């Protein structure tokens, strides 16, 4: 996760798209996979993110770390694709795409898939702000300051959002039982 965490304020760098892709495609894929859950194809999401990045790269002035900028674009792309995917859930199966490490026991993998699907269904009941914070902290394992740097908010805001998110998520999971 070191590459995904934004560093201190960088000096303005004129990024070439090819270089940016080589440096941060994996980070974008990871963010997209975590934020989207098992329903969406990560490869397509990465592609969509860099389609958005291409025309805007010349306008990037370096006011924020490039990772923060990329994360915001990834978050918006994932939100848009999730909104589109809601209409496709009616005819798509709940199996989802390949998401887990296939080297584990198939039974464990199946149980894990069910848990992940259930968790993301519950996370869909949260707002985008709360959902992003809880995913980055509880699943992706980022700390409060790292999340604050990615979202460009104060660390206290991250903790407040995390508290509210977990509280509501517990209620949602309790109601599903």
């Amino acid at each position, binding site marked *: 996760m070191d590459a995904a965490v934004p560093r201190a304020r960088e000096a303005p760098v004129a990024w070439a*798209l*090819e270089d*940016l*892709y*080589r440096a941060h*495609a*994996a980070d974008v*894929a*990871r963010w*997209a*996979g*975590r934020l989207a859950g098992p329903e969406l194809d*990560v*490869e397509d999401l*990465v*592609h969509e993110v*860099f*389609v958005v990045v*291409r*025309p805007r790269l010349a306008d990037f002035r370096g006011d924020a770390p490039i990772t923060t900028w990329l994360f915001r674009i990834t978050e918006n792309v994932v939100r848009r694709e999730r909104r589109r995917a809601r209409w496709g859930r009616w005819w798509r199966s709940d199996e989802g795409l*390949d*998401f*887990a*490490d*296939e080297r584990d026991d198939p039974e464990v993998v199946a*149980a*894990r*898939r069910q*848990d*992940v699907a*259930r*968790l993301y269904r*519950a996370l869909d009941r949260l707002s985008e702000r709360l959902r992003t914070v809880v995913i980055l902290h*509880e*699943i992706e*394992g980022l700390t409060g300051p790292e999340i604050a740097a990615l979202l460009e908010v104060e660390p206290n805001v991250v903790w407040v959002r995390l508290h509210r998110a*977990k509280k509501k*998520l*517990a209620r949602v*999971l309790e109601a599903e039982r």
Partner: protein
Amino acid sequence: MTPMERLFESARRSEPVTPEALARIERRGPPEARGAQRRWVFAVAMVIAGGVVLVQSRTSVRTPKPVAVRTVPAHSPTLGPAVDGAVEIARAAGPEEPSSRGAEIEGAGRSRRAREAVPPRASGSRRGAESSRPGHVLDASAASPSEGAAFEVPTAASGAAGDEGSGAASGAVASGGVESVSGAVVVGGSESASGAVAVGGAEFASGALASGGSELASAAVASGSSESASRAVVSGGSESASGALASGGSESVSRAVAVGGSESASGALAFGGSESASGALASGGSESAVSPPAAVAPSFRDSRRSRPKGLRRTLPAYRPRAVRELVELGTQRLAERELTAEVRRILALTDRRSMLAQLDRIAIDDPDVIALRGALRVEAERCRDALADLSRVERLAPRSPAASYASRVRRWCVAAR
């Protein structure tokens, strides 16, 4: 571990991206510019759409079967009145009316112009005839302008004959840039002519014989650049003629016979440059002629004074006071003289009508009695005219000065009985 923590743990153990997917992403490289692709797709789509429109515009509806045709006489009995009827109406007004003569000249001039506007349409139909297939005879030879309006065209007994640029012709003979013709004979750039004979740039001619640049001619015979002619015979540049026989540059003619440059003639017989003639017989350069007594009266020659304010002056001279004084004077004069018993009995009657009837029965040689009888006759005639005019004035212009004047005359007539 709470259930929520267990779910988080499962999610943590699940990698969001498999190593194979990550390798594919890195091999794939950054995407191409989508904007350029979209521009190319848009350009290709526009070229294809333009080609489709071009092909459709050049495609004509052609029926395989030949059609039975008959030739309409050169002078169409239906379209003729639209052009010549205006002149006939103007002549019917009589040469003694100067304004009517003006209307005749005006109406004839406009009709002439309307006729002169027809030949290009006829030549258009000739072009349509030349371009028609064998077996489809379209003879638009026009010897005179009115014949051009009546245009000789074949009608289809069954099936349809579509010509250049026609679209959806059903049971019709269509020539020119026609679209959606049903049961009609159409020559020129008509659109949606149904059950109509449309010549020229008519649009939405339904059940009508429309010639020239007519628009929305419905169950009407429209000739010239008419617009919105409904159940009317319209010739010239009329606009919104409804249930009317309008000739010349009329506008908004409704249930009226308007000849010349009338505007807003409603239920009226308007000749010449009338404006807003309603329920009146307006002749000459009338403006806002309303009441029929004013219009039909002999003193109504100068109809420019026919405004409501001037109606009192132009009404027939009832002069009730003068007639009353004449009768009273004759009665007083007779009262001072030696009269026969029979004449005295008649003069003692209070009913003037009975008095006049009694005087008509006896032989009179006294000049004063003869004068009284004449005064009574004038009084009776003017009362009759006043009462007849009053009923029409009160019906058509109840608040006009003419109505109040006539009501005074009626009171006098009733009192004189």
